């Protein structure tokens, strides 16, 4: 795609039109290349299965996976799985978001609170939190609570750490300006620290989505009746790889949709950024 900057008679570049075109070109170039790889992957996948290089029990064909999808949605069981996983994800993520944002703001704003909690937070952050799963089941039982707790524990840290660092990195010059106008701590928090940390908070939420999905899967792996993760686990044990693939795609789709929502929010709040 050629990017052309022409000069009009007065010698100033007429970049307005051509740069818009170029940008459009760049964007579609991105989309085309991104899609091309996915298509290529599908073609290779189809070829590998069509020539029988791998038996379907190890690698199902794309058609086989589509078929598995159709079968899954023909029975009502899938909706129980969706409901179970959705519930775990929703409660765990929502709790992580609320607690992470509030605690992150507090810890970022009050240095003493930071001194108090930081070592513990760093310790927990360093622990592979999925390892807490068995303990949570002992404490909270095999039901929804332990699963929500695991999702929460895994997802809360990116939100909390991002939020507190957002508050801590507030622009000291803006604080000086505000103080100059007689602003107290509360007003500085509300008008500078809070809006200044919104991009950090949204970044933390975006990371937390992926972490939450890991939490849901691991929690269901450790013992569950329903759930997409449990479905994958059961199908895997019975060598129903087509269903495993279908489950993976469901997880991926959930992650992509949720990330798209946060990205949309980020764009909305970042209107003032360059």
């Amino acid at each position, binding site marked *: 795609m050629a990017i052309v900057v022409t000069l009009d008679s007065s010698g100033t570049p007429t970049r307005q039109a051509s740069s818009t075109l170029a940008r459009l070109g760049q964007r579609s170039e991105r989309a085309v290349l991104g899609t091309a790889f996915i298509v290529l992957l599908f073609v290779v996948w189809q070829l590998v299965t069509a020539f029988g290089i791998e038996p379907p029990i190890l690698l199902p064909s794309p058609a086989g996976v589509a078929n598995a999808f159709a079968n899954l949605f023909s029975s009502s069981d899938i909706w129980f799985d969706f409901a179970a996983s959705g519930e775990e994800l929703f409660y765990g993520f929502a709790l992580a978001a609320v607690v992470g944002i509030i605690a992150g703001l507090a810890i970022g704003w009050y240095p003493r609170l930071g001194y108090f909690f930081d070592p513990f937070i760093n310790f927990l952050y360093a622990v592979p939190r999925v390892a807490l799963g068995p303990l949570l089941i002992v404490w909270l039982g095999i039901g929804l609570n332990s699963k929500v707790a695991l999702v929460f524990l895994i997802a809360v840290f990116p939100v909390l750490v991002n939020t507190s660092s957002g508050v801590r990195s507030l622009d000291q*010059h803006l604080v000086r300006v*505000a103080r*100059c*106008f007689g602003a107290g701590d509360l007003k500085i928090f509300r008008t500078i620290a809070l809006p*200044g940390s*919104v991009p950090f908070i949204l970044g933390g939420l975006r990371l937390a989505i992926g972490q939450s999905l890991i939490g849901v899967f691991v929690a269901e792996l450790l013992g569950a009746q329903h759930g997409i993760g449990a479905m994958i686990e059961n199908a895997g044990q019975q060598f129903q790889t087509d269903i495993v693939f279908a489950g993976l795609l469901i997880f991926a789709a959930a992650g992509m949709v949720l990330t798209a929502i946060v990205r949309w929010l980020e764009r909305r709040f970042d209107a*003032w950024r360059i």
Partner: protein
Amino acid sequence: MATAQVTTLHDKAGHAASSSPAPDETSDYLRARNVSLAYAGRGNDIVHAIDRVDLSVKRGEFVCLLGPSGCGKTTFLNAVAGFLPISSGELTLRGKPIEKPGPDRAMVFQQPGLLPWRDVLHNVTYGLEMSGKIRGRQAAAHAGALLKLVGLSDFAHSYPHQLSGGMQQRVNLARALAVEPELLLLDEPFASVDAQTREALQVELLGICKRAEVTALFVTHDIGEAVFLADRVCVFTRRPGRIVRDVRVRLPKPRDEARLKPEFLAYVQEVAGVLGSAAAGKANGT
């Protein structure tokens, strides 16, 4: 001349400004007497920033503080703003000692310091919101009038990153003026804009200060800027800063064309001479 103007806003907000004694035209508005300021620097060093500064400013005067870099003039400005406590001496505003920042003073820094997530209009209302003077629609109307004053009415709904450095600095100025300060403190506000914009802003600043009837304390290290703007140029020595000379600039206002006149050049030469000997370390008394 400067008694009636500032009260309008205070009255609207129910803050009667009557508690302060009526300013006497002949008395000093801002007065520094033997003001010294030292603070703890790196290690165990004590930095003596300014040393026995004497200065008195009348209402409506435009005073430039001129001196070599790091001479303590900004420190002095910060003390007047109420950010830094003085070590010794007496620093009073309307006869009362300055202890903390107040709504009667507004500071314009070298960096515009605009809130990037607020549009221009709401950046101008920011000071009003913080000082709690007026808010909402009234504040917006007031801010709109100030944007007109600095010539940015068309940009009320732009965001800071969409403006040039000079325009951002005008917004900064409008924000400071919005709180209707009696004393405007400016810390090299035009140092980071290009030369042409700087001259245009200087002309505007003089007009604005006259219309808004504010007293101004302007820190700069640019001799031409100081002479162009000031009623008085106070020349500082190297650190610890002292005022070695108080040059009264008797150029008629408005000074839009003043730069071309021989008198202007004579003042520049005079001030440059003083500054040269001050910078050479001829600090009196130490």
